[in-house]
């Protein structure tokens, strides 16, 4: 009798420890940011992605997938309906309640923290590969990316002095924010050989005309959809204050693809190169 009891305990314990430590390779993945979707795709698991968030628009086969999250609003049940075995989500996008809900449904959620640096990019790739259960390919892609970054950085165009770049995140006139220190944009500008025009604050803060004139950037950088939301290049140059800046005088308004600029993963070398080409 007593032996039987121990036997059962043993089976239960070994069952749980087995499920705990052997992470099966994820087959049905939901990716909830553009950088995560692109990285999973680059790791060769694009066909395992079932659905993404609204910002995952590159490449085309990812863009075609259903979008289950829009501006971080989503429904737990809609995501569950895809019967995923892994959800990859940027840290902080799921509330405590959401994490608890997925946990009680037995769906594995891995929150990915993204650091905006060269080291951060390779760490990001390794983290995602580990979550999928293919560390080998993660190592491969991380090393390849790191090599490409180093090559890119050594081949950058260099000006007489590094240009002051002001990034404006625009969603139409009235909703414009500028990037401060420590943001993803701040880091990519530095990597591409520029200098962020805003040094007074961190993260993103609302745009004001006077702050624009005071910072006097050599280049104004925007996402492509940001510039079109303001009515295009000509309309932007006509905004109050723009003509008083070096960027306005020289018509140095640069637009970049959003997901590429803030990818900070496998496409970081490409982003550095493209931005460097346009600001110098």
């Amino acid at each position, binding site marked *: 009798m007593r032996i039987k009891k121990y036997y059962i305990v043993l089976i239960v314990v070994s069952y749980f420890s087995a499920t705990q430590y052997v992470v099966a390779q994820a087959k049905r993945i939901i990716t909830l940011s553009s950088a995560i979707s692109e990285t999973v795709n680059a790791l060769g698991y694009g066909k395992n992605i079932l659905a993404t968030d609204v910002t995952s628009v590159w490449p085309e086969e990812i863009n075609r997938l*259903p979008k289950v999250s829009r501006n971080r609003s989503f429904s737990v049940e809609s995501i569950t309906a895809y019967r995923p075995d892994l959800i990859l989500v940027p840290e902080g996008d799921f509330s405590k*309640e959401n994490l608890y809900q997925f946990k009680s449904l037995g769906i594995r959620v891995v929150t990915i923290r993204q650091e905006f640096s060269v080291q951060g990019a390779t760490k990001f790739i390794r983290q995602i590969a580990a979550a999928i259960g293919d560390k080998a390919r993660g190592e491969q892609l991380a090393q390849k990316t790191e090599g490409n970054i180093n090559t890119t950085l050594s081949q950058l165009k260099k000006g007489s002095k590094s240009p002051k770049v002001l990034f404006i995140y625009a969603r139409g006139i009235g909703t414009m924010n500028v990037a401060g220190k420590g943001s993803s944009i701040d880091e990519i500008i530095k990597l591409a050989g520029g200098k962020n025009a805003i040094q007074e604050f961190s993260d993103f803060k609302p745009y004001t005309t006077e702050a624009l004139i005071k910072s006097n950037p050599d280049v104004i950088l925007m996402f492509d959809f940001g510039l079109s939301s303001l009515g295009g290049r000509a309309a932007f140059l006509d905004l109050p204050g723009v003509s008083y800046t070096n960027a306005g005088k020289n018509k140095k308004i640069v637009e970049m693809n959003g997901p590429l600029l803030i990818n900070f993963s496998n496409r970081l070398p490409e982003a550095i190169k493209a931005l460097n080409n346009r600001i110098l």
Partner: protein
Amino acid sequence: MKKTVIYTCLSVGLLASICFSLALGAMRIPITEVIGTLTHAIGFSVFGNADHGINEGVIMMIRLPRTLMGVLVGAALGISGAAIQGIFRNPLAEPSLVGISAGASLMAVLIIAFETLLFSSLSQLLGYYLLAFGAFAGAGITAMLVYNLSKINGQANVSTMLLAGIAINAMAGALTGLVTYLADEQKLRSITFWMMGSLGGATWQNVSCLFPFVIIPVIGLPFLAKGLNLFAIGENQVELIGLNPNRIKILVVVLATMAVGASVAVSGIIGFIGLLIPHLTRLLGGVDHRFVLPVSALIGALVLTLADMVSRLIVQPIELPIGVVTALMGTPIFLYILIKDKKKLVN
């Protein structure tokens, strides 16, 4: 007789909407399986046993708590709306219009923003209670403030009350805006959630936390119905039959803000329910508070369950903020009541 019919119809309607809410969603789950899972959970077995898989999980861990939260929040907003309209003797006094919801959410936002600063070691459950209690305190403070501001010679003045409500709404909005400048991105998201309203975060944990805060007012407020009826004639009438008007006032405000505060704490601000439901109730069966209070709770629960269903189903796979749905459904009905009453006044 008529009242019995209304009670029966509404109860059946509420039950039906609960069933639909459990049966419909982004996951296609056959109705037989829904019934099987639910009956299995309470110990019976119909249509064979539940599959113990993801379908059961969705029904038991996602849909059931969410539906229950809709019922509780709807009942809370409906009955507090009716009670507050009674105590203010004004059909426009609604938790969100006179600033009670704004007070609750401001307090909640403050707690979220300064949580890590002040109470770094809060456990999750205690955190819920703290939020609920904070929102309750915020609601109570604003209710008292608005009531006292609007009192002229012991009578609550309608226009002063509304203006005070507008002022407090603006103030709370401004302070919330100020806090959002101090908050980081993650906190900002929880703050946006408070302003929009959603039942999407329902878990057994927060539903069980909400339960006592709603059930006590829903049971307690109807006992004050007689007093509220006398209030409608005038405060001195209450004294004439030997009741203490101040005690009734305080009890109503405490119970109503308790329900509203806790609801706001778990689901954010959901507008229009508190204003609209009591009007709808009076349209059905007159102004007697012994009828208006319990039926407002019933209709509130019914309407919010339906609204949540709409918010989940019409823009799949994402969902619409429930506040958008209640305002879209509520405004036309409210305008209809307004026009109808206007005709009555002319005749």
